[in-house]
């Protein structure tokens, strides 16, 4: 059948009679993203902005995005933003947090940024229990620079700097930094999520909402990992990528609540 009949124009009349049950959040700008088709960054951006909209905290929120594919986050997130040097997002967020104790502060970091060059800043920020939300996008690769190996790259996984697949001898083990983070008393809430299915997206949204709630109550660091994809870096279609992710990433990085407040 032709698509005409259902094209928005045609449908327009009806829409008035209907409830809009889902629309792009206002806090997400209309700028078309530079992300590759199917990249999880886009969903993570949207969900984060949805929560900020629903909590009505756009005016009190300050975000930090370091180098990485999401370095342009400030083009899409309509809140005050700081772009940070590679690996230093949590240090920058600390600076902001300390001078604005009552604002909402988040950092949005990739695995290379958070788990490689930024390891010290990440761990000490959480160890200080900085009252911020760290959103950690783990796609097991360096996307922006063209698909090099990351600390989270799986053993045997091929990247431009592990052309024969990652081996322990040359590069050590995939790093489960989120589990290490959870050990720190400064970490109040630690959760691992994904954005590849509707339910996963719903869960992430809950997690982020909780995190901001905890931040309001000054509970300490909330750390949310999003196991995500990188179709370009992985050299797969978005659908293949998400499938590969479930099969290969989840066994190593199982989604779920890792550290939840005692009731």
């Amino acid at each position, binding site marked *: 059948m032709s698509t005409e009949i259902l094209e928005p124009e045609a449908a327009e009349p009806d829409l008035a*009679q209907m409830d809009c049950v889902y629309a792009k959040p206002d806090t997400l700008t209309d700028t078309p993203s530079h992300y590759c088709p199917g990249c999880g960054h886009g969903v993570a951006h949207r969900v984060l902005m949805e929560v900020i909209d629903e909590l009505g905290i756009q005016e009190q929120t300050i975000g930090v995005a370091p180098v990485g594919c999401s370095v342009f986050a400030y083009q899409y997130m309509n809140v005050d933003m700081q772009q940070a040097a590679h690996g230093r997002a949590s240090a920058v967020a600390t600076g902001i947090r300390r001078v604005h104790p009552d604002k909402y502060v988040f950092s949005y970091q990739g695995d290379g940024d958070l788990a490689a060059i930024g390891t010290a800043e990440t761990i000490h920020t959480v160890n200080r229990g900085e009252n911020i939300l760290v959103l950690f996008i783990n796609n097991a690769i360096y996307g922006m620079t063209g698909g090099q190996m990351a600390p989270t790259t799986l053993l045997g996984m091929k990247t431009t700097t592990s052309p024969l697949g990652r081996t322990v001898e040359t590069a050590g083990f995939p790093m489960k930094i989120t589990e290490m983070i959870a050990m720190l008393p400064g970490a109040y809430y630690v959760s691992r999520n994904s954005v590849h299915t509707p339910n996963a997206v719903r869960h992430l949204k809950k997690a982020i909402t909780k995190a901001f709630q905890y931040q309001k109550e000054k509970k300490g660091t909330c750390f949310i990992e999003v196991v995500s994809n990188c179709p370009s870096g992985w050299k797969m279609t978005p659908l293949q990528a998400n499938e590969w992710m479930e099969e290969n990433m989840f066994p190593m990085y199982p989604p779920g609540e890792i550290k939840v407040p005692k009731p």
Partner: protein
Amino acid sequence: MAKGIVTFNIETCKGCELCIEACPQESIELSPSLNKHGYHYAVLIKDNCTGCVNCALVCPDAVITVYREKKKGKPVSVATITNVTSDITVSVS
């Protein structure tokens, strides 16, 4: 079964097909034609949409708006957490 409809901001669609995968009704497909960025964009090809919002949830480019027939009453809120210390229930349709 709720009656819904989705609209696509086709120029921002990148044809990643995630919405197609996510749609339980198999109501979405990529159009044969290209948008101005050279992508085949998603379109609704059946009228059996229930407005379940799945497609919109997984869309990386916030291309999709979802509507649902009024009679079903109160709009579906996707996660509003009031008291986080207790458990949270999120109602979707």
